[in-house]
């Protein structure tokens, strides 16, 4: 594929999405779009959009170490984490089942039936995973709540010293079975990542095959009653729900303190998806930043959004607020004027930061409400009380697939999947070749 030299803005490595062999790749500017381009001698040329619009990609990624020659020629197939990997483990994702009670058009974990993983194996794995007082564990699947023994798994992980315990869930059982939610809370569950694709049922019919909005609301209420923090997790698919982003943020704010934030995930094409993606089927991080600004009337915008410090900046962003009782929405995240990510955050710092914000605080940590006259929001005690109870984050993670996989990003990944005795970067673990199913 011929390039004008000044159109190439960066070099990295990727893979052929059909056969999986590692290939040199280039980030190429075409108009306002940035594409990741690569050629496989057997399967031809691939060009995948990774960035759109006016937000400057160089400002967003500045200070990030380019791949250079320090890469593993067998990446991502040599995984576990190798000596070329840069980031420590921030969060560990662990699948407790492959069963699911939905059959979605899009799913990173293909789901399926069959025999479940034994509780003994799960306990052995948890022993391997947990570093007492440190580990941030995500229980995932399939749909973890199809297991009746999930509270036992949660309690076991807590007993081993797991610091933050997250449940990834579609919310069906959390809505229908409050007793189960109570058991999870008593077992020590910290928070739920609730699949929440939008504020309209046509979105759920398209993505999940049925109307789910009322179920999601009930799941939030049940978790709220039992003091489990909820973060809403929309999968963003162009033409389906990218016009509902502002509504999702406002819905989340309206459910504070039950809801602790929104974690957007632009669609990626691994696991199960309908057909090999065209560039029109992609929604980039830069579009999300722009649409957040427009659809929230500037409440969440580039001046209060910071690129990921812990992972590669092209993998996500974070933005932290307090949704005050008087209706003010106070931004806490203040990147420098260029939106720069030059500061490096360790996995431990990141873990503490997000864990604290996604959990609801213990009653003992909350300062008492301040009597009315002094109880204005700028009073130190009142501010602290609301900062603890009404924290709200807007975050995003852009997962990679075989088409846009960038080994520079893989080696900065701090979200690691534990499987078969190994830790692997999330996108390397769920990589699907050959054009999807």
């Amino acid at each position, binding site marked *: 594929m011929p390039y004008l030299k000044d159109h190439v803005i960066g070099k990295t490595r990727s893979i052929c999405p059909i056969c999986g062999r590692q290939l040199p790749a280039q980030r190429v500017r075409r108009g306002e779009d940035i594409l990741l381009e690569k050629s496989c001698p057997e399967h031809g040329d691939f060009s995948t959009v990774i960035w759109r619009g006016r937000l400057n990609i160089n400002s967003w990624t500045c200070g990030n170490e380019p791949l250079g020659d320090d890469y593993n020629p067998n990446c991502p197939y040599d995984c576990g984490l190798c000596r070329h990997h840069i980031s420590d483990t921030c969060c560990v994702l662990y699948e407790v089942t492959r069963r699911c009670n939905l059959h979605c058009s899009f799913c990173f974990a293909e789901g399926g039936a069959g025999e479940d993983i034994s509780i003994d194996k799960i306990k052995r794995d948890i022993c391997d995973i947990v570093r007492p007082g440190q580990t941030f564990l995500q229980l995932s699947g399939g749909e973890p709540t199809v297991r009746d023994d999930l509270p036992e798994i949660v309690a076991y992980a807590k007993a081993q010293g797991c610091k933050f315990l997250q449940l990834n869930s579609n919310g069906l059982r959390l809505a229908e079975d409050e007793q189960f939610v109570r058991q999870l809370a008593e077992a020590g569950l910290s928070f739920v990542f609730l699949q929440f694709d939008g504020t309209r049922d046509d979105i759920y019919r398209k993505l999940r095959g049925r109307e789910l909005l009322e179920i999601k609301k009930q799941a939030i209420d049940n978790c709220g009653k039992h003091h489990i923090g909820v973060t809403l997790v929309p999968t963003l698919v162009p033409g389906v729900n990218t016009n509902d982003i502002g509504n999702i943020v406002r819905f989340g704010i309206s459910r504070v303190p039950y809801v602790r934030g929104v974690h957007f995930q632009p669609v990626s094409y691994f696991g199960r998806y309908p057909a090999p993606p065209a560039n029109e089927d992609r929604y980039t991080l830069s579009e999300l930043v722009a649409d957040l600004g427009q659809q929230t009337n500037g409440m969440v915008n580039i001046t209060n959004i*910071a690129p990921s*410090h*812990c992972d590669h900046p092209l993998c996500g962003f*974070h933005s*932290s607020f*307090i949704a005050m009782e008087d209706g003010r929405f*106070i931004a*806490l*995240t*203040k990147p420098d004027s260029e939106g720069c990510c030059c*500061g490096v*955050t360790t996995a431990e*710092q*990141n873990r503490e*930061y997000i864990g604290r914000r996604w959990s609801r605080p213990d009653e003992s940590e909350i*300062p008492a409400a301040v009597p009315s006259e002094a109880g204005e929001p*700028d*009073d*130190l*005690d009142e*501010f*602290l009380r609301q*900062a*603890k109870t009404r*924290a709200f984050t807007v975050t995003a993670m852009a997962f990679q697939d075989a088409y846009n996989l960038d080994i520079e990003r893989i080696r900065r990944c701090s979200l690691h999947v534990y499987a078969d005795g190994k830790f692997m970067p999330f996108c390397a673990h769920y990589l699907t070749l050959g054009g999807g199913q």
Partner: protein
Amino acid sequence: MERKLVCARCGKTLENKETYFAYFGHQLHTDLPCCPQCGQVYVDKELAEGKMRNTEAELEDK
């Protein structure tokens, strides 16, 4: 008996006064012992290591 705090510079007894803090672009206030003459305030260890540190942690990014 309550301790009496005296300003080391002016020798005046400190009096409680609404005091503003600015941090990361946010302004918050609380009552602190303050010198009526020079305006210097006294922040005790409990406040510095407790509420003020917690407030910093809430306001700071990662």
